[in-house]
C-alpha cells in the first residue's frame, strides 16, 4: 500500500504530470508561463528544471496557436498537456477545441486518436469580474468528442489528471484557482482515478446533492449544517462531467428520493439541467419532490465583493433549497429564491 501524505491540490497536479512525464517521453507541457516563470499559479513549479525546455515549453500569448500546435502534435502521436492560464482564455482558442480536437477522429473515420489534455483553472476566484470568473464546463461538455473532468480534492486531482493524460481522447481538465492551496491526503506514486466514475463524498439518506469541483465543498458545508437539524444529505461528486456517471446519480436518488444539483455555472442550458433531465426521466417514480438546481445567478460576474457573493451558490442557498424540498421550515434568515433565468427584451 502506498503511504498517504498530505499535499496541496497544486502539488498533486504537478505530481501527476511529473510522474507521467517520467514514464512517457511523448508527454510534454506547453502554455503561457509554465516554464521559466514556474507557472502562473505555480502548478508547474520546478518542472522546467526537471525536464528542460524541450518538454516544458513557454508560449507567447497565442491560445489559438498553441492549442492548435497541441492538436497537430497529438495527430502524430505525441501526448500534449496544454495549459490555459485560465479557461476564460480558452475562448480565444475554442475553434481548436470544438471544431478540430473534438471532430478529428469522427471526421476521419477513426484514423486518428487525439491524446491531448487541455488544463487550467476555471470558475470564479475572488473579485476578478466578468471576464475572469466563468464556469465554462457546460460549453465543452456539450460537444461530443470532448471529455470534461473537474476534480474537487487533491487526491482526485492527481488520480484524474493521470487518467486524463493516459486517455486517448481530448480531455478538458478544469481546475480551480481557489482550490490550488487546498490540502489533502494523496497517495504517492501510482494513483489513477478512472474517468467517468462519480464518488460519494458524504453519504446520506434524505437528499442527494449532485455536484463537482469546488461546489463539492459548498455542499459538504451545507450537509454539515443540515445534519444539525437531522437532515442527512448525500454529496455525490461527479468528478467527470462527460462521460457522466448516470448510474451513480440514479443509484443515489433511488436511495434518497430527492435531488438537488449544485453548480457554479449559469442556470440556462447548464450541466445541472442535463442531470435534472436524467433524473426526471430515469428516476421519476423514485422522486418525492421535483429535482432542483442551485446555480450562479444568471448574470455576468460583478466585481464588487458583496455582489459576487450574491451571484455564487452558497451553503445557505443549498440549505434553503433542500429545506424547501423536504418541506422543512426555515429556521434562520430569509428564504432565497432559486436562480431566475434572464430573459432578453
Amino acid at each position: 500500500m502506498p503511504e498517504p501524505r498530505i499535499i496541496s491540490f497544486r502539488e498533486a497536479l504537478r505530481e501527476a504530470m511529473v510522474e507521467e512525464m517520467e514514464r512517457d517521453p511523448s508527454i510534454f507541457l506547453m502554455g503561457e508561463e509554465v516554464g521559466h516563470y514556474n507557472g502562473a499559479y505555480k502548478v508547474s513549479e520546478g518542472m522546467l528544471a526537471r525536464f528542460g525546455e524541450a518538454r516544458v515549453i513557454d508560449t507567447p500569448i497565442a491560445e489559438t496557436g498553441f492549442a492548435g500546435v497541441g492538436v497537430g502534435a497529438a495527430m502524430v502521436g505525441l501526448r500534449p498537456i496544454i495549459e490555459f492560464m485560465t479557461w476564460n482564455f480558452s475562448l480565444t482558442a475554442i475553434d481548436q477545441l470544438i471544431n478540430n480536437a473534438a471532430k478529428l477522429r469522427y471526421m476521419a473515420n477513426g484514423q486518428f486518436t487525439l491524446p491531448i489534455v487541455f488544463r487550467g483553472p476555471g470558475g470564479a476566484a475572488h473579485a476578478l469580474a466578468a471576464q475572469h470568473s466563468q464556469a465554462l464546463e457546460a460549453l465543452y461538455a456539450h460537444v461530443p468528442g470532448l471529455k470534461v473532468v473537474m476534480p474537487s480534492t487533491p487526491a482526485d486531482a492527481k488520480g484524474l489528471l493521470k487518467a486524463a493524460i493516459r486517455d486517448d481522447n481530448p480531455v478538458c481538465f478544469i481546475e480551480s484557482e481557489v482550490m490550488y492551496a487546498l490540502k489533502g491526503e494523496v497517495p504517492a506514486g501510482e494513483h489513477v482515478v478512472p474517468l467517468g466514475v462519480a464518488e460519494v463524498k458524504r453519504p446520506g439518506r434524505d437528499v442527494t446533492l449532485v455536484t463537482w469541483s469546488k461546489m463539492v465543498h459548498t455542499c459538504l458545508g451545507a450537509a454539515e449544517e443540515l445534519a444539525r437539524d437531522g437532515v442527512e444529505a448525500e454529496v455525490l461528486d461527479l468528478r467527470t462531467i462527460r462521460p457522466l456517471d448516470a448510474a451513480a446519480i440514479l443509484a443515489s436518488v433511488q436511495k434518497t428520493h430527492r435531488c438537488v444539483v449544485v453548480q457554479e455555472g449559469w442556470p440556462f442550458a447548464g450541466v445541472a439541467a442535463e442531470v435534472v433531465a436524467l433524473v426526471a426521466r430515469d428516476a421519476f417514480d423514485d422522486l418525492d419532490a421535483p429535482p432542483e438546481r442551485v446555480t450562479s445567478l444568471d448574470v455576468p460576474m460583478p466585481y464588487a465583493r458583496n455582489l459576487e457573493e450574491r451571484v455564487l451558490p452558497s451553503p445557505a442557498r443549498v440549505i434553503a433549497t433542500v429545506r424547501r424540498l423536504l418541506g422543512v421550515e426555515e429556521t434562520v434568515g430569509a428564504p432565497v429564491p432559486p436562480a431566475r433565468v434572464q430573459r432578453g427584451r
Partner: protein
Amino acid sequence: MDATLLLDLYRQMCLSRRFEEAAAKAYSQGKVSGFLHLYIGQEAVAVGAISAAEPTDYIVATYREHAHYLARTDDARGAMAELFGRATGCSGGRGGSMHLFDAAKRFFGGWAIVGGHVPIAAGVAFGSKYRGEQDVTLCFFGDGTANMGAFHEGLALAGLWKLPVVFICENNQYAMGTPLYRTLSVEDVAVRARGYPMEAEIVNGDDVLEMREATRHAISRARKDSLPFFLEAKTYRFRGHSVADPATYRTKEEVQKWMERDPIGILAERIRTLGIATEEQLRAVDDEAKAQVQDAVRFAEESPVPAPESVEDYVYA
C-alpha cells in the same frame, strides 16, 4: 528535362481536373451533397508542390483539397466514394468533400474552418522536430486566410520555434466572392510572412514546374535548417467558390483571360515544345485519367452507404 516526370505531372493534373468535372456532374445529378469546392484552374499548385515532397512528408490542407488528396494518394476511388457518402470513402462517408483523410499516407485533412488548420500544421511540424525526425509538413490554404488570427498565430509559432513547415498560400484572388484588393491591405500575402520571420517567395502558381522547384527549395530549407518557409502561389479558380456559386462577381473577360493560361494547357505546350510527347500521346494520358475517374464513379455508385448502426462509432477512442 525528365520526360517521365513531366508526363506524370500532366497525368496528375488531368486526373484532378477530370475528377472534379465528374464530381460536379454527380453533384448536379444529386449524387453528391453538401458543399463542393472545385479546384479547377489551380491544379499546378497542389500537383507541383506535392510532387516535390517525400511520401513521408505531411500534407495539411483545406476544404478545397481534392487535388491535394489525389496528388498524395492517387486514390480516386476513395475520394469519389467519400463525396458520394459511401462506407468505402477515404473517411468512411463521415467527412465528405471537405474532410478527406489518409493517416497512413500522411494526408492530414481536409479542414473546413478557414485558418484553423494553420496552427495544426505547425503542430505536426512541432511533432517531427520534438522527435528529431526529418519530415516536413506542407500546409495549404487560400488568400482569404491571410486576415485570420489563427493564420498569424500559426506563423508566429512556426517562426518562433523554427518549425519545419512550408506554408503554401494559394492566392486565387477571391475570398469566396470578394476580391482580394477589397479585403487585404497589402498586395502580396507573402509580405506578411516575412515579419515572423520566414523566407517567402512568390510563385507563378499556374506553372507546375515553377511550383515544384520553389517547393523543393522550401522543403529543403525546412528539412536541412529546420526553418519555416512561405510560398505564395498566384493562381485563379475557374469556377465559383463552390458549385452553388455562379461567380457573377467576376467579368467574363477576366475569367477568359485566366482560362487562356490554363495550367494544364501550359504544361501540355511545354511537353510538346520539348518533343517529349505528341498531342495524341497527351490525349492518351488524359484518356487514362478519365478512365480512372470513371472507374472511381462506378466504384462509388456500387459501394454501400455507411451502416446506420455505425453512426456512434469513432466519437471517442
